[in-house]
């Protein structure tokens, strides 16, 4: 009995949205999608139909109040969707309620919108539609003087669609990003379900988010989720907190590419872990990345490197200097190097394109050099969300991840990057300069490693044509990580040792 009345969800097929909506949109009901200009309402409405046709073979009717079908077709073609073809296949029908050029309608006495309803019903019958999108309601309000009539008529249309078992998306304009739901107050009658799209300016960068405000009678994720609109895929929601911590975990160790470091880490990195290497400029972060990849390829693993600081030529030349030759690896298809300026696209687009590249190449190892370069072009929140999305994705792919981040000071110190992502990565390796007796030396320590014992020493290391070599621990220096190394007398060390052994 209960199940009969429960609200069923309809998977929209819009990437990520169904996770946020706990399965999709309430089936057989009308959902209002409100957003300011340029927030992606039309794309959402159109994709609701194209995804339905593609994924579920559910034809759709698109009712347009604003743009002509011709314009919509042109615009959607730029996203790679051929609506004309879908029309030919009788999967998509337009109801053109857009204003006609030069047409002026005069009102003389009472009227209703029966013709619109009849046309929508005819469109639904013609293609056997299960989904209807109406875009956008503001345009129809501006064409008639009596708003209360239009409201009542839209309510009637929503009810008629409900009785036909059709799931409907209506879009409406908003004036501000935070404030009234819609300009025309339509939410009062189709308010069962409300979704808000935002396009907020934050730190000089546009940030698109989607929020499910309410789904009457059913549940959904709360809060704003970032999304992006990209060619071919259209609307992609990045469902951060919907990501569940359920990635598999194994005890399989893989080599870091450096035998000394493997020993320090208790036998290497875990296979499905993400490690962060933090250090000042020139401490050897890119070297560790190079070794990580070299070690992977030697074990016949596929590796992928995203580089945001150096060009291909630079990377390849530097690697050769450390005894790792990237070129044959790439020719054999064992390695893929992606070099791009961080400024090229937004963080949301970056995440989607990186995920896509990883999915295509299916690497065992993924390295990112460096996160700090990406941080530069992002807002704090956008950056954090990016790291979260990327780490969880890498783990889901059961790949090993290695990220680098640059500290802002030469001696000691932490970077903002670290402060925000240290809890998201499984292991942290610090590379630090150590100033001793008028000489710059370099030290490495494994700060944390989830689920494993590791060497807690700060070890000195050197770099030569064969890579990085760990030496002895800095036994008689303190304050390295704090950034003010001080020499400690060896007698003092003996004394401290004695103190603890007595206790």
């Amino acid at each position, binding site marked *: 009995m209960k199940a009969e009345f429960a609200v069923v969800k309809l998977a929209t097929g819009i990437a990520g949205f169904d996770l946020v909506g706990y399965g999709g949109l309430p089936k057989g009901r009308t959902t209002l999608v409100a957003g300011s200009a340029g927030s992606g309402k039309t794309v959402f409405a159109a994709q609701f139909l194209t995804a339905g046709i593609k994924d579920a073979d559910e034809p759709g009717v698109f009712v347009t109040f604003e743009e002509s079908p011709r314009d919509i077709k042109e615009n959607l073609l730029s996203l790679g969707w051929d609506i004309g073809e879908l029309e030919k296949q009788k999967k998509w029908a337009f109801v053109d309620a857009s204003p006609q050029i030069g047409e002026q309608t005069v009102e003389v006495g009472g009227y209703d919108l029966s*013709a619109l309803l009849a046309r929508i019903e005819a469109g639904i019958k013609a293609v056997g539609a299960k989904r209807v999108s109406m875009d956008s309601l503001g345009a129809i309000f501006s064409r008639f003087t009596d708003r209360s009539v239009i409201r009542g008529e839209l309510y009637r249309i929503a009810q008629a669609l409900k009785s036909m078992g059709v799931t409907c998306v209506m879009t409406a304009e908003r004036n501000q990003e935070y404030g009234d739901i819609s300009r025309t107050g339509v939410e009062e009658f189709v308010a069962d379900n409300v979704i808000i799209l935002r396009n907020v300016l934050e730190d000089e960068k546009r940030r698109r988010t989607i929020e499910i405000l309410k789904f009457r009678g059913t549940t959904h994720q709360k809060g704003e989720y970032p999304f992006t609109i990209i060619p071919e895929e259209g609307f992609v929601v990045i469902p951060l907190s919907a990501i569940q911590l359920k990635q598999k975990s194994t005890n399989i160790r893989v080599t870091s590419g450096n035998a000394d470091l493997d020993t320090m880490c208790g036998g290497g990195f875990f296979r499905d872990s993400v490690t962060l290497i933090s250090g000042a400029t020139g401490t050897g972060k890119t070297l560790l990345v190079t070794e990580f990849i070299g070690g992977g390829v030697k074990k016949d693993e596929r590796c992928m490197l995203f580089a945001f600081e150096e060009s291909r030529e630079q990377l390849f030349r530097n690697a050769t200097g450390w005894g790792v030759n990237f070129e044959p690896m790439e020719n054999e298809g064992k390695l893929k190097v992606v070099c791009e300026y961080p400024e090229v696209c937004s963080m949301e687009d970056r995440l989607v394109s990186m995920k896509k590249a990883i999915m295509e190449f299916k690497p065992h190892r993924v390295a990112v050099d460096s996160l700090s370069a990406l941080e530069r072009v992002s807002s704090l929140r956008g950056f954090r969300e990016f790291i979260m999305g990327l780490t969880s994705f890498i783990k889901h792919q059961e790949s090993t991840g290695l990220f680098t981040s640059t500290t802002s000071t030469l001696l000691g110190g932490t970077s903002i990057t670290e402060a925000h992502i240290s809890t998201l990565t499984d292991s942290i390796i610090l590379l630090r300069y150590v100033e001793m007796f008028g000489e710059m030396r370099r030290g490495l320590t494994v700060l944390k490693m989830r689920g494993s014992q590791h060497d807690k020493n700060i070890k000195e290391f050197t770099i030569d044509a064969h890579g990085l070599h760990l030496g002895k621990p800095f036994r008689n220096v303190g304050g390295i990580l704090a950034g003010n190394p001080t020499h400690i007398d060896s007698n003092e060390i003996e004394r401290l040792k004695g103190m603890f052994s007595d206790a």
Partner: protein
Amino acid sequence: MTLMNNYLFTLYIAGQTSRSQRAVSNLRQACENTGAAYELVIVDILERPEAAEQAKILAIPTLVKESPLPIRKVIGDLSNHEVLINELDIKPA
């Protein structure tokens, strides 16, 4: 005789509602009062929704003056004869 039917109207209705009947009688009266000669085609969009799609009709009733040009659209039950005659520029035959 050529002056006969110098107005061609199409009236879109949705079934025989009292509002559409009012629109028909209001149009007849207005034309008769001004002494205009006209021909009226009534389209029931419940029977022919494709006609509404073609003419891009939203509201019911909608009256379209097809000729003489320019084409004019008026919506409503046409209860205000004065506005109706003005808008459609109805003159005696």
